[in-house]
């Protein structure tokens, strides 16, 4: 890629003399090549995984209606996911290429297997529900998908954390909580919309708890990251973050106050779904913003060096004896 953006803007009359701490302001790491479909997939994946877990909970507590509806909500996520992924890869066969290996060091590979397991379980369970057959297979499938759904709803956070994008990598502690929070609020919200309020208590609680976790984890993350929190609070990502928080917060409030009425549950669920989607878009955009500005890459790494946890990749001259005799403070 050639970069023309810096001309005339950042440059003073110094001309081709670059700023001292970067190479003409060029990014050091590459921005994700992923398009919008990927954060949307993150949302649907979370919805599917958390819904599968919710369905298992409902099944275990004998709430058949909620179990059934959560399964269907999860199916929406499962059905939406592959097209989004394939859209990014270009053609369907390329999705299958990920199934030629099991590779633990690749969260994307792990996630693909989790998607298959969760999706497969949900599909069987949903099929049985629809046709009203094979209840034991349905329960087995629900159990499987519910268990796999937990990591499936979470792995996308690991996927983005396992990159060189500073706003993602350095947020590796909180991001999974942001993501499960969003997943729970989306799954709970979706189930609350389509389930009669009398059967949706657990879904409402799930949704509210999820939204609270999402908001809390988001605040903690932004605060802890310091300079690297900037991408989450500035620019387009900042607007998305604020919008998602308002939406999720409002959704949780409405769910708590008016969730026992169908219309209230519908409004709250919609807000929560939107909030979760916006949160994924915000995280995605924040990653892009942090990749674009080399300051974030350098800052995080310089801090490591300054903190003494690393000496960096540079090594300097000096014979061993000289190291001792030079009047260095070390």
């Amino acid at each position, binding site marked *: 890629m050639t970069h023309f953006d810096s*001309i*005339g803007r950042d*440059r003073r*009359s110094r*001309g*081709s003399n670059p700023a001292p701490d970067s190479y003409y302001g060029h990014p050091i790491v590459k921005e994700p090549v992923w398009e919008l479909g990927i954060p949307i997939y993150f949302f649907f994946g979370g919805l599917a995984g958390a819904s599968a877990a919710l369905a298992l909970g409902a099944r275990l507590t004998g709430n058949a209606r909620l179990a059934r509806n959560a399964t269907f909500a999860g199916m929406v996520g499962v059905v939406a996911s592959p097209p989004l992924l394939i859209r990014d890869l270009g053609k369907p066969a390329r999705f299958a290429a990920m199934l030629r290996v099991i590779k633990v060091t690749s969260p994307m590979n792990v996630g693909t297997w989790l998607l298959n397991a969760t999706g497969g379980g949900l599909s069987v369970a949903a099929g049985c529900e629809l046709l009203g057959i094979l209840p034991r297979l349905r329960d087995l499938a629900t159990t499987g998908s519910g268990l796999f759904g937990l990591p499936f709803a979470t792995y996308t956070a690991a996927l983005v954390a396992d990159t060189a994008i500073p706003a993602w990598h350095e947020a590796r502690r909180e991001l999974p909580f942001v993501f499960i929070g969003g997943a729970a609020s989306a799954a709970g919200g979706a189930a609350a919309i389509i389930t009669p309020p009398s059967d949706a208590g657990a879904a409402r609680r799930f949704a509210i708890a999820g939204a609270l976790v999402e908001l809390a984890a988001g605040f903690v993350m932004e605060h802890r990251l310091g300079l690297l929190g900037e991408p989450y609070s500035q620019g387009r990502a900042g607007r998305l973050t604020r919008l998602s928080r308002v939406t999720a917060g409002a959704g949780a409030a409405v769910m708590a106050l008016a969730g026992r009425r169908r219309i209230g549950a519908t409004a709250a669920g919609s807000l929560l779904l939107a909030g979760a989607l916006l949160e994924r878009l915000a995280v995605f955009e924040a990653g892009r913003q942090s990749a674009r500005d080399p300051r974030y890459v350098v800052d995080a790494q310089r801090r490591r060096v300054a903190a003494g946890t690393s000496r960096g990749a540079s090594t300097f001259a000096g014979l061993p004896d000289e190291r001792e005799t030079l009047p260095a403070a070390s």
Partner: protein
Amino acid sequence: MGSNMAENHPVAYQWVMEARERGAQVIHVDPRFTRTSATATKWVQIRAGTDIAFLGGIVNYILENGREFREYVVEYTNAPAIITDEYRDTEDLGGFFSGWDEASRSYGNETWRYDGADPSPMHGHREMGAPTDQATGFGGHSAGAPCCDPPHMDPTLEDPRCVFQILKRHFSRYTPERVAEICGCSPDDLRFVARALCDNSGRERTASFVYSVGWTQHTVGVQYIRTAAIIQLLLGNIGRPGGGIMALRGHASIQGSTDIPTLFDILPGYLPMPAAQARHDLRTYIESQTAPGGIWGTVDAYIVSLLKAYWGDRATAENDFCFDYLPRISGDHSAYQATLGMMDGSVKGYFLLGENPAVGSAHSRLHRLALAHLDWLVVRDLVEIESATFWRDAPEIETGELRTGDIPTEVFFMPAASHVEKAGSFTNTQRLLQWRDQAVEPKGDARSELWFMYHLGRIIREKLANSTDPRDRGLLELAWEYPLTGATEEPDGEAVLREINGRQADGTLLSASAQLKADGSTTCGCWIYCGCYADGVNRTARRKPHWEQGLEGREWGWAWPQNRRILYNRASADPQGKPWSERKKLMWWDEASQRWVGDDEIDFAPDHGPDYRPPDGARALAAIDGRRPFIAHPDGRAWIFAPRGVVDGPLPTHFEPEESPFANLLYPQRANPPRQRFFRPANPYNPSGDSPGADAYPFVMTTYRLTEHHTAGGMSRFVPHLSELQPEMFCEVSPELAALRALEHGGWATIVTSRSAIEARVLVTERIRPLDVQGKTVHQVGLPYHWGRNGIVTGDSANDVVPLALDPNVHIEEVKAASCDIRPGRRPRGPALRRLVESYPRITRDGDVTQAPQEHAPGTRSEGR
């Protein structure tokens, strides 16, 4: 100096980097901080066009501080020679030498002769530019010069009329302070460079100069190199390992194109072309070209062998070996004269082989206007270059000065094979011939130059087969038989090389030019190349790696003459034949074998020892004293003072470029007096110095190349991988100039001269810095010249704005230093472009008469219509 070697000769520059790594000091003196400056150990910035002042300062430093290599200077140069008392220096005549003829604007060199030498006026050397010399012929190489030492000498170098003292006086005013005022450097910069040169010269050390077209492309370019030669002679750095002056050629085989010339005035091996006015027959030609001593003492053998190569068995002693079939030249037919001839209608047809004057030649706009006057034009190139398409897309069509329908020129475009699609040899800068094999067959109709020339000749001969016109005899009787290979009937390049190498009467290949005979028993296509195919081995194709042979690398390719890697290497030993030092030994006299021995091939009579004294009546090499290494001169001495051979003076003198914002600080005479200019409305000049209107062009501009592109762009602007590296025309300016003229980095600027205006992207960089010159601040503008209207990446051509003013010796254009104006924004489109240009003052008549800016009368057209 005068070279941006890292950028334009990156492959050769590896050796400079290696030298730097081995501890050599690399000093770059240049108007810009380039990639060469960045990798040198020292950079000195000077104003473009002031190198003689800087070099003159070094000469002055050497002489003032007694740093010359005295024994070398006394024994090997003409420093002790006494010059006639008729000689007057620029010191005496305000910037002129004696012998100036104002009417012809040329020098006669009678008063530059050695005291006691024959003052015959016949001694001129290829003075094509000077009309007075044409009547007397284009004198040969040192012909008529006295054999052996100059008649009167003072080995103590004290005589006020000896060359050494003349030199001292001549350069006495080039003090560090004065030089700094001219060049814009600091006096300490000059002292640093001078001291570094002196410290690295002498018995134990040598220093070398590297120059390129940054020195040659000036109206006083030959004298730039002369100044460096004087420094190197004073310091004893010629003919010794690590010394010398490296003339880096502009691109592959440019050296070859003067050895086997594409020039109008010489035959292969630097034999002068016979002139019509001289009415020479073979005998008088030989007489006029033969020097009493040195390598030019056997011109008869060279020319007769050449004629035998041309006309084979038909060349006999009875018919003067067909000497009369050789064309005669009637004047200056150099490229720029030919261009003006097109404008005037005297040149009707034109071949362009690997040349793109519409972009690459000085004042390229004039060339486009001239091409539009031709009846026919043949362009042979890899791609459709601007010179082939000017009739439909020249910028002058946009301005309304040319209309496609009005252009009578019939253009034939012939696709050419590239260097990987044909076999042949390159001759590079160090006279090294290197054979290159064919890698792939050319595509489509593309063919080699050899194919084109051979078959063109064949077809013309076939068409003329029944002609009885005497003027066709030379063509019809040429020995034009070469083996053809392949489906395309490509002539065998090695057969041509064997013809160049030459043969004995029995057909065996010659091994040295000493074997050439004047009786017609030998043939040789170029006497300096004789031996390149010795013993039937293509020596130019040798590729023994350097780690398998000695330092001189004598088994890699073949260097003319006689595979000598260092010319005049007799000078690597002292007059007694011993190396000057163990550290710098190369050739020495071996008493036991009575021969010169060492790592190189001796550039001297191999069995003439230091005690050799030429007997009376000796000729050629036999006439050279055993202590005089410079065998190209009849006296065997290197010429610090040039009594002949240089038309603009026996000593170099600083002159301002044709176009410069400054007067000459050293002399009343501003620019080189005999420089060539061409006054006509289509070829205006900027007013300079103190002339009225000069302040319209306050900046110094210089043009140059970038690593990423090749000259006029034919080989690079059409290649994606090169085009992307430098995709647009830009100009380099300092932050200060940017502020002064409101130029925005990354924006556009328009560069204006009296000829045209071009636009370029603005690259503001501290690599270009304002200079303090003669008490005022001057800004320089850097212009790469690679772009044109065709290709993947396009842009305006810097050559559109440069002047057409030439060095009088070699007719090289001055494109490295001129004056200009620069303004922010893009240039006007259409006819408005000409209105902008014509709003600036100009000179179109001799005598530095400035014409006021023209009113914009509608319909005002330049001469091009």
